[in-house]
Structure formats: structure tokens, C-alpha cells
């Protein structure tokens, strides 16, 4: 593998070409550009991380805004999305096992020669299909996550609509643990690597595009893909809610559920679909995040708390707020991890998000874009 990545012909950005930072980089640093390239890289990191936060928080706040449910199982939906990829890759990689009696394992049994059936049947096309398991998983994740979301809402969560938020938190948290344990029993506790398609391995030389020396600002191709993907999904959800009749009814229901009901509209059915939509968004975020973070059963929990902070900072029930807060907190978290910042404020990288949340809630108790009356008696 070359450091320039494997994105050949379709490369829209100059390649890092082995990141030969040598002389040119030294000159750039001499001109005082080191801090600038560090800042640009942290902005990119923050946007990337923020994209994941925003996707998860969007679903959370959507469910809260429509159904009034604080869904602690939302992180588990992110994890289930990631495991759609794991499952599909496992399915595509099903192997034909042939024992080779001429070779023995270290424990004395005949060596097994394993070849994926897809390679046996379709040759190079089969290999390519396995290589593209991550993006292909999107096609699987959409119906699966929609089904899981609807089943979760109809089967369990609807029974808790009129219960206290504490009850909702307990039951959804319990559900998250059950889902985690099922996944662990099936797939084990270790992370399962899910490489990006070969063409997106390696990194792009973004710096060269914006006037920096070659090799100074390089960024992994797949993270760039993820950033654009997050933007596209967010835009699609907003467009769906803004420009369709269904979306208009949902927004009206979020504003005044009772009145919409009095107009003869079955708002509950629409809200069930919204729950499914939130599950799909979280699941897609999980699918595309697998090459960045090897999936394991606990990955949803790791994101859950941060996503709740994002929702609270953005304003409970505010879709735009969730997205804005996701990117804001992602960028701040990245900056707080810089050595220069940590040398002044040790440990700031681990508390920055919560610190910002405290400050924002003190200054704007409803969050950045919170509306009056939401979660207020």
C-alpha cells in the first residue's frame, strides 16, 4: 500500500504521494505555517467527528420532538447499523473450505484452504463486491433499521409515552444493554475490522489544493467521504421534513400534536415512521463509521452520552440545533486535544464538551436553538 492512497483515476484531490514532507514542509514551517496546518487538520477532525455526532443527535432529537421520548437505546441503533456491515461482509465472505491433507496445522489436523464463494463463482467481481461491503451495506441497513425502529416503537416504547421520563430512560437503557449483549453473544467482544474499499484507502493531500506545501495537510479519504455522506444525509432529512407533505404534518405535530389530531390526521402512525427514520439515520451513521472505528458491541454507548450532550446544547427537540451543536462540539473537542492547549489546561480534552454544555446552559438554559415549552412544565 502506498501512502498516497489507492484513489487512482477518479481522484479529485491531489494525492499525498507518500507524504514526502521533507524539504518543502521545512520551508513552510519556517514561514510560520505549522500552527495553521495544525488548525486546519483539527477543523477537519472536528467536522468529521461532528458529522457523526450530528447524525446520531438528529435522530435523538427527532424522536424527542415528535414522541417526547428520551431514547437511551439510540446509541444501540448506531451500533446495530455498524453490525449490518459486519453481517453483510460475513455473508459476502462465506467461504468454501477445502482440506489440504498435504499440509498440517500446528496441532496436526489437515490445513484448511478457504476461498470466498463469491470469488469462486464470480472471480474478480466477487472480490470487488466483498471489497465494497461497507457502502453496499447501506442498501441492507435502510430496510433493516427501519424495521428495527418500527418494531422498537410499536413493541415497547409506545407503552411508555405517558410514563415519566425516568421510566422511559430506564426502559430504553435496559433495551440498549439487551441489544448489546445479543450482539456480543453473536459476534464476540473484540472489535471486528471493516476496511474501506481499497480505492478509498490512504489519504488525500488537501493542503496542496489550498496553497500549502505538498504533504503538509493530508487527510484520510474515507473520512472525507464520511463528512460528505453525513452532509448528504442531514440535507436529505431536512429536505424530507421541509418539502414533503409528510414532513409538514410531522413538523405540525411537533408544534401542536393535539390540534393536528383534531384535524383527523393519524399523527401516531406518522410518528412511528419518524422513529423508524431516526433509526435509519443512526444506522447509516454506524454503517459508514465502521472503517474509522472497528465495530464492537459497546460502540453505541461510547457515542450515546456525547450525543445527549449535543442534543441538550442544541436545544431539546431542535433539529437545526442538534446539527449545529454536533459540529460545534466536534470541532471544540478536536481543538482541546491539541498539545498547545493541553499544555495550558491539562485534561481539557476530556471535559471540554461538558464544560461548554454547562456554560451554554447557564447562558441559554434552553440550549442554542431550544424552543420555549419543550420539556418544561
Amino acid at each position: 500500500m502506498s501512502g498516497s492512497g489507492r484513489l487512482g483515476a477518479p481522484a479529485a484531490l491531489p494525492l499525498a504521494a507518500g507524504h514526502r514532507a521533507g524539504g518543502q514542509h521545512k520551508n513552510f514551517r519556517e514561514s510560520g505555517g505549522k500552527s495553521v496546518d495544525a488548525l486546519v487538520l483539527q477543523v477537519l477532525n472536528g467536522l468529521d467527528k461532528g458529522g457523526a455526532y450530528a447524525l446520531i443527535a438528529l435522530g435523538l432529537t427527532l424522536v424527542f420532538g415528535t414522541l417526547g421520548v428520551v431514547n437511551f437505546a439510540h446509541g444501540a441503533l448506531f451500533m446495530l447499523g455498524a453490525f449490518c456491515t459486519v453481517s453483510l461482509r460475513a455473508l459476502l465472505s462465506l467461504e468454501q473450505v477445502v482440506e489440504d491433507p498435504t499440509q498440517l496445522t500446528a496441532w496436526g489436523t489437515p490445513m484448511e484452504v478457504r476461498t470466498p464463494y463469491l470469488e469462486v463463482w464470480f472471480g474478480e467481481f466477487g472480490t470487488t463486491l466483498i471489497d465494497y461491503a461497507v457502502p453496499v451495506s447501506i442498501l441492507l441497513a435502510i430496510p433493516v433499521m427501519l424495521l428495527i425502529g418500527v418494531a422498537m416503537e410499536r413493541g415497547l416504547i409506545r407503552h411508555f409515552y405517558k410514563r415519566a421520563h425516568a421510566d422511559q430512560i430506564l426502559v430504553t437503557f435496559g433495551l440498549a444493554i439487551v441489544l448489546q449483549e445479543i450482539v456480543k453473544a453473536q459476534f464476540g467482544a473484540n472489535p471486528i475490522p471493516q476496511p474501506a474499499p481499497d480505492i478509498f484507502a490512504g489519504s488525500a493531500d488537501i493542503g496542496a489544493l489550498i496553497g500549502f506545501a505538498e504533504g503538509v495537510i493530508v487527510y484520510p479519504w474515507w473520512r472525507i467521504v464520511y463528512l460528505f455522506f453525513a452532509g448528504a444525509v442531514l440535507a436529505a432529512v431536512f429536505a424530507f421534513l421541509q418539502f414533503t407533505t409528510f414532513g409538514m404534518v410531522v413538523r405540525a405535530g411537533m408544534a401542536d400534536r393535539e390540534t393536528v389530531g383534531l384535524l383527523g390526521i393519524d399523527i401516531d402512525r406518522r410518528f412511528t415512521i419518524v422513529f423508524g427514520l431516526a433509526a435509519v439515520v443512526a444506522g447509516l451513521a454506524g454503517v459508514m463509521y465502521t472503517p474509522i472505528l472497528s465495530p464492537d458491541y459497546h460502540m453505541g454507548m461510547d457515542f450515546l452520552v456525547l450525543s445527549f450532550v449535543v442534543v441538550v446544547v442544541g436545544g431539546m427537540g431542535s433539529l437545526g440545533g442538534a446539527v449545529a451543536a454536533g459540529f460545534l462540539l466536534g470541532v471544540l473537542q478536536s481543538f482541546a486535544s491539541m498539545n498547545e492547549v493541553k499544555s495550558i489546561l491539562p485534561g481539557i480534552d476530556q471535559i471540554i464538551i461538558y464544560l461548554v454544555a454547562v456554560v451554554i446552559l447557564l447562558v441559554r438554559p434552553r440550549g442554542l436553538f431550544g424552543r420555549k415549552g419543550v420539556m418544561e412544565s
Partner: protein
Amino acid sequence: MSKFKTTRRDFLKTSAVLGAGLSAPIILTRPAFGASYRNEPMGKTVTFGFNVPQTGAYADEGADELRAYELAVEHINGGGDGGMLNTFSSKALQGNGVNGKQVVFVTGDTQTKSDAARASAKRMIEKDGAIMITGGSSSGVAIAVQGLCQEAGVIFMAGLTHSNDTTGKDKRANGFRHFFNTEMSGAALAPVLKNAFGTERTAYHLTADYTWGWSQEGSIKKYTEELGWKTSAAVRTPLGAGDFSQYITPVLNSGADVLVLNHYGKDMVNSLTQAVQFGLRDKQVNGKDFAIVVPLYSRLMAQGAGENVQGIFGSTNWHWSLQDEGSKAFVKSFGQKYGFPPSQAAHTTYCQAILYADACQRAGTFMPSEVGKALEGFEFDGLGNGPTEYRAADHQCFKDVLVVKGKENPTSKFDVLEVVEVTPRAQVEYPASMLGGDLGPYNNG
């Protein structure tokens, strides 16, 4: 009569004192009547306590430890093919149990949490009568359980724990470690790194922010700086950070040409994968190829990082591809029983069970102080790491250390590491006083 009248306040006080007394840990009380030490086996069996992570992030490693323990018990009791008992230099064990008693076992789940691990060890000691506790996949857990076993008066045979502190500043008389430590990793890796990358290098450390990470960072810095390497930065990362991008990007233009990942488990899988995605493995800095080093490798974890481990150096306690008679016997027994090769965690726990049983047999008793004396200074061979000694001064095993590299062309999913150097024991030895601590006296309960 009035002097015997009990007020409500007196009643509550008395109840509180009685309650506290009754609920105090049994381990603070004397051994059972007639027994001369804690959990002295009176019947035809003796119970070992296997305390491994059965849930949580290291559950797969824990499962492998449990497989190895079951195999060890089978061999001690005379079942199976005998495994490494056939190659072990001590011939005290005859395949009929220990001191005439069949070995049975109970298990506990450490969850890789110190409090949970202590609770499960306590339960096995108090309720199940375990004579010895062994296992674990974390230094924090090992140190916590070792302390508990010292208080309880049973022997603790540590599982996978790599921090210097386990047999350094936190060592205890009742605790014994077969696994190597960060000091040995540093001593073994440094010469290999010198040969591979030269003496003029600048290293950037990313370190898991807990006892093992600090210990590992300190050892690698010490030995690489002795070679002439410089350390440009040592950055602490939160345990379980997941996305390490914000810690990796500063490395890109830091001027460093080596990245040392003092991470283990999931952190290692994620940080290594992401470092490779950022192009670090293929980068050139100062006219040299950039290098990544993972000081502690685990084959189970390396599988999680997939092809990203290729060409990356690290150290390990043992590897199934070793060709000595002991390793071959163990791999054969384990592979035939379970269908795949054992991990280093399985190897060290199997050895610990065998070593404990052998010490009891040689001592002719299960009394911790006598068993401990039988282990202290015990020199043996045939358990897969060459001639080995349980040093009396700190209860640390000294043996050859393996330096490994991620294999470029693996032949199977288990074949991810190749041994590039077997560092002789003499090269990784250090004075016991160097790491501080005090064993203190044995406690028989």
C-alpha cells in the same frame, strides 16, 4: 429491673454493632475450625478459582484464558494428552491431581473492573472455598485482586498483567506473575528497533492514561533514549477514546519519525487503524521511512486491527508458532481440543495453573507460605519460554522475551504475527529493587 431496660437508641446501637460484625468480610476472621490455613482442603478435591473477564471489552481474551485453565485442570487430573506436563522439567505432578486430591474449579467474572474482580474473587474464596485465585487481563484488576488475596490468605497467580507495578511497587508475598512486564518489553524491543530504524530517531508517544500506559511509556522512553532516540512528545489519551484522529494529526507535522502506541486492546486496534489511515505507516520524515511501534502485542487484538499490523514491531510473552517442545505440545493439546491455536493469555494462564499445582505437590501442602517458598527461586524449563526462574525477590518470572512483527503475508486469520527475535532472559533482567515495593510476609489466612 430498670437497669436492663432497653431504649430504642440502645437497641439501634446494638443492632448496628452486631450487624457490622456479622457483615464484616469473612476473610478478616480465622480459618475454619480445624484448618491450619485459609480454605485448607479436607475432602477429596481441591478448588481453584479462575477469575477472568467473561463480559466486557476483554471477554474474548478471558474466554481463551478459561479454555486454557480447563485444559490445565484436565492435564493435572490425568486427562487428555498431558500437554506441557510432558515437557515440563519438574516431574512432581503425576497426572493424579495435586497432593492426592482431584482439582475442581470455580469461575468468576472480573468484567475488567477492579471492584467487580475483587467481588468475584472474594465470593470464590469465601463461598466456594477456592485455595488459589488466578486470571485476569488487566494490570489494574491484577493489582486489586492481588491485594485482596494477600488479605484473604490465598495465593494469587496473576494472568495477563504487563505493568511493572504488579511485581514492582504493588507486589505482595502471596502474588506471583508468569507474564512479562513493560520493563522487559523495553529492554527486548530497543535492540531490534535500533537494528531496524537506527539510532537517530525522534519518537512521539500516544499513551493510554492509566497505570499500564504510564509504565509502558516510561520503559520504552528509557530504552530508546539510551539508544540515542529523542522523544518529541508523550501525549496521554483517555482510555477507550475510540476516535484518535485529534491525537494523531499533531504527529503528522511534529517532526517525529516514529509513533509509539502505548495502547492495548480496543484502543490499540483503533489507534493503529487510524494512524495507518492517516498515512503514517507510509510517510517519510527527515528522509526516513516513518515507523509505528506497538510495544505490547496480543494476537487476539492484532486480528482486530487486520492488515494494519503488517510490518509493525512489538513484543509478546509467547506465540503459538514457537518450535520448542513445550510450545508444540501446548499448541497441539489446545488446537485439538478447541480447533484454533492458543493466545498468549491462554499460555500464561495454563502455565500459572501448572506451576501452582506443581509447587503444591513439591511442598506437600496447599499452605500459601509453603507453596510460595516452593515457587520462590524455582527454575524450570519446558513451558514454552526456555529456561525460566520465578525470582524470589519480587515473584516475577524471568525468561526469554519475544519481539514480533505484523506478518506481511498471513496464511490464516491466526497467522498475524511473526517472531523476529527471541531476546535472551539475561538481556531483560533487572535488579528487583529497581521497581520498588515490598513483598511483606506471607498470609495464610
